[in-house]
């Protein structure tokens, strides 16, 4: 089973969300990057973009497929990982660390409570993950 850090929350689309004060850092899970294979391109929104929970905010492309990235929470993008366009392989190498994608300032707390816990996400993966 893939690495699923206990201190993060998760979506059914395999994004992770990390609470950092009043902000939420977002990336894709180790399971997601394993399923995608070598990531060759990441398209992220600009700082200031409004994102909506469960709606696409960007695109990740691997040698096998192109997938939308789904926002775990609604809010405004306040930071974007500028390294990823030039080093997309970081997503494979360090999905929970240097492979982070965006930081969102959530517009409400409600979305956060809808996210899966590490345990729920692990259960979800055991059931097939989709």
């Amino acid at each position, binding site marked *: 089973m893939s690495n699923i850090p206990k201190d993060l929350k998760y979506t059914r689309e395999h994004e992770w969300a990390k609470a950092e004060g009043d902000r939420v850092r977002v990336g894709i899970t180790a399971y997601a990057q394993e399923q995608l294979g070598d990531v060759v*391109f990441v*398209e992220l929104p600009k700082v200031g973009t409004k994102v909506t929970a469960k709606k696409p905010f960007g*695109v990740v*492309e691997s040698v096998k497929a*192109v997938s*939308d990235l789904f926002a775990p929470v609604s809010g405004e993008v306040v930071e974007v990982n500028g390294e990823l366009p030039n080093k997309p392989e970081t997503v494979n190498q360090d999905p929970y660390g240097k492979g982070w994608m965006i930081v969102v300032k959530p517009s409400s707390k409600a979305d956060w409570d809808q996210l899966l816990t590490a345990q729920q996400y692990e259960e979800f993966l055991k059931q097939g993950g989709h």
Partner: protein
Amino acid sequence: MASRYIANTAAEQKRMLGVIGAGSLEELLVKIPAKARLSRPLSIRAALAETDLIRHMKALAARNADADSHVCFMGAGSYDHYVPSPINHLISRGEFFTAYTPYQPEASQGTLRTIYEYQTMIAELTGMDVANASIYDGASSLAEAALMAHAVTDRREVVLSRGVNPLHRRVVATYCEGPGIKLRDAGAPDGVTDLEAAKTLVGAKTAALVVQTPNFYGCLEDVSAAAEIAHAAGALLVVVADPVNLGVLEGPGKLGADIVVGEGQGLGVPMSFGGPNLGVFAAKKELVRRMPGRLVGATVDKDGARGFVLTLQTREQHIRRAKATSNICTNVALCALMATIYLATLGRHGLVKVGELSAAKAHYAAERLSKVSGVALRFGAPFFKEFTLKLPKPPERVVTKLAKQGFLAGVPLKTFDRGLADCLLIAVTEKRTKAEIDGFAAALEKAVA
């Protein structure tokens, strides 16, 4: 009656009618009101023998006035440039003779290689980083550029110079209707885009400013100044250019264009009464993932040998579905091949010569024709191989008169621009001789007298 073109026999028809319970074909049609039905046989003549048919078709074709039967001064987007004879011989080879990019592309290394060479030549000519494998024609290239600018900038307005070919502008309008992209016209009252006016139209909502050079009226635009206006507003500059001119004129990419599109028919593709044509499309490298169309890339195989692939296909519809950059999944491979052979045949020197000769002859013609009494150049702006003449008589009538004397005199502008109802657009390529131009001037003199 037995028909050559209806596959089923009388016996089969009877069986089919039996299954659905109709007694005859007539009974099957009884529900159609009598007045809506033709009560007599179609008036089609009896079948001709092959030799008779060929004679008949040749007689029909001979009634056309084309660039072989007449001396052609028509342009407006399709030009009578020389088509070197190797082109027809080479494209007729079975390995090449298809209109499409192959469905199993990597198995067709030869085709991919010609497309790769085409892309390389177009990128070099336009001064851009990357060119696609071509799309349908200049008009669809321009429309795709408008959609791409919208996708890149996430803005919903495109400012089009009125110097852009009006037929192409109409195609852009059709493409932009669905996604709701608003088009705004920047005027060109003196034959070139009024850049001061364009500046007031280009703003925070503008995805792209589009100029054509030489423009529809033949005049050269100030591309660098247009680039400054577009970029100051965070918009892209789309330049429409005829690649056959780019042996002489600077590649628009070097003047600040973000996307260069154009009609590539001049590169060895016959005019063929308006098509098939060649849609040229080139862009800056950082925009490549938003570029429409197919793209061939060079790579190495597992043994290190050079090979060619279709690359960045994740932009395309067969992978990306609704989110594809465009619904273009093909290219005009055969016309792109013509252009590739054309450029390879002419070489650097030849292409420069084509541009120099066309421009020099156009300027000689302009000088000669504007000496005709009552005839004058409509605009003062510098032009390249095409120019707008003001005539003292209705251009449509002049064109009809001159056609009878063996000249395709040009394109009357009334249908494109009511303000130019007295104007004729004249194109001169390297094919025109001094004798033809002098003869044309003499014929025009009589026609407007």
